[in-house]
């Protein structure tokens, strides 16, 4: 009996460690896969997509709402000298600008019903600045939601979205780094 105590202890320890590790890693793994999937479906890096209305045929993210306009922008602030300049154009109804990090946390949301919003997104570890948000992770997603429950409102939201902006910049210059979209 005694000779099984060692393997039994190892089994319990490994099971507990694997359990904790799987839960800890799952959001990051799922988000990384989602980012890859969004990239494969044309969601650009540092540029808002011009979205299609959410239907069973066009949906790309689980539990999307068919009543909302979603514009997505992937970002990568791996270079600490960069920032993402974000602008959400005006929309007379509900709209919001939300930020999600690489672990799926919604670390900031700005409501902008009836007004335009401009903000800068800074790399992890940056000092707080007025008019700027610090991202907890280098990579993530920025999402604009606009209430647009029918085809007519969706078309209007698409027009409003033409002035939306998501652009990578050097923090001490205005020009975008080479290769950035």
């Amino acid at each position, binding site marked *: 009996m005694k000779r099984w105590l060692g393997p039994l202890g190892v*089994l319990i320890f490994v099971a507990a460690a694997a359990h904790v590790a*799987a839960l800890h890693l799952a959001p990051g793994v799922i988000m990384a896969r989602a980012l890859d999937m969004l990239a494969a479906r044309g969601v650009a890096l540092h540029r808002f997509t011009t979205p299609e209305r959410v239907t*069973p045929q066009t949906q790309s993210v*689980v539990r999307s709402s068919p009543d909302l306009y979603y514009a997505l922008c992937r970002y990568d602030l791996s270079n600490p000298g960069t920032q993402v300049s974000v602008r959400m154009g005006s929309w007379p109804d509900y709209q919001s600008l*939300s930020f999600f990090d690489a672990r799926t946390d919604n670390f900031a*949301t700005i409501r902008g019903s009836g007004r335009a919003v401009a903000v800068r997104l800074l790399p992890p570890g940056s000092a707080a600045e007025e008019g700027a948000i610090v991202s907890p992770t280098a990579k993530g997603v920025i999402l604009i939601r606009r209430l647009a429950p029918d085809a007519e409102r969706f078309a209007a939201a698409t027009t409003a979205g033409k002035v939306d902006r998501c652009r990578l910049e050097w923090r001490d210059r205005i020009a975008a780094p080479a290769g950035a979209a």
Partner: protein
Amino acid sequence: MQRVLAYLAAIVTGAAIGLGSALWLAGLLPGTNNVAFGNVDVDGWRSDFAIGSEAADPYTRARVAHHGLLALAKSEAVYFTRNTDDDGRSLSSACTYRLSGGAMPAGWWSVTLYDQASMLPANTDNALSIDAGRAGSGAWEAIIAAAAPADTKHWISSRNAGAFDLTLRLYMPDPALLSEPEAALVPPRIERLSCGEHG
């Protein structure tokens, strides 16, 4: 040699148990649809107000990452999900239901139907939800069925959904909803009307 094999078996078995139990409890195993989770339960509608925040426990985080990616934190929106009718029976596209309610404690709300993969069901009926704008300010009702009813104003199509659930979105929630959801929210009722080949 036998001792080495015993330790190897313990490591492999332990890893499998740990991984499997984590995925099962987080609702991530293939074929599971454990979306009605959370610490808030209002008449069978379940929510977790820690969604989207760092405070979410690891099980919630994993579930949300899988079933509700890019969900907003509660200050902006809360999400309730229900996969049973008022009598506790699983929702199915083989049945017809009456969904009814009234005003909600939020700036805007909607109820949307999703299949077991957390996706909109594969149909072209353009009848996937009801929202505050269409429902109006007072009492409202919608019929959930696989085919359009002849005499109803609001229809939510369950065609090709199989077993499904409903998500209630409440955007710009009233403070009372966040502090005392059971008192502030009167959620929609889901009454089963009939079942059969065509619901």
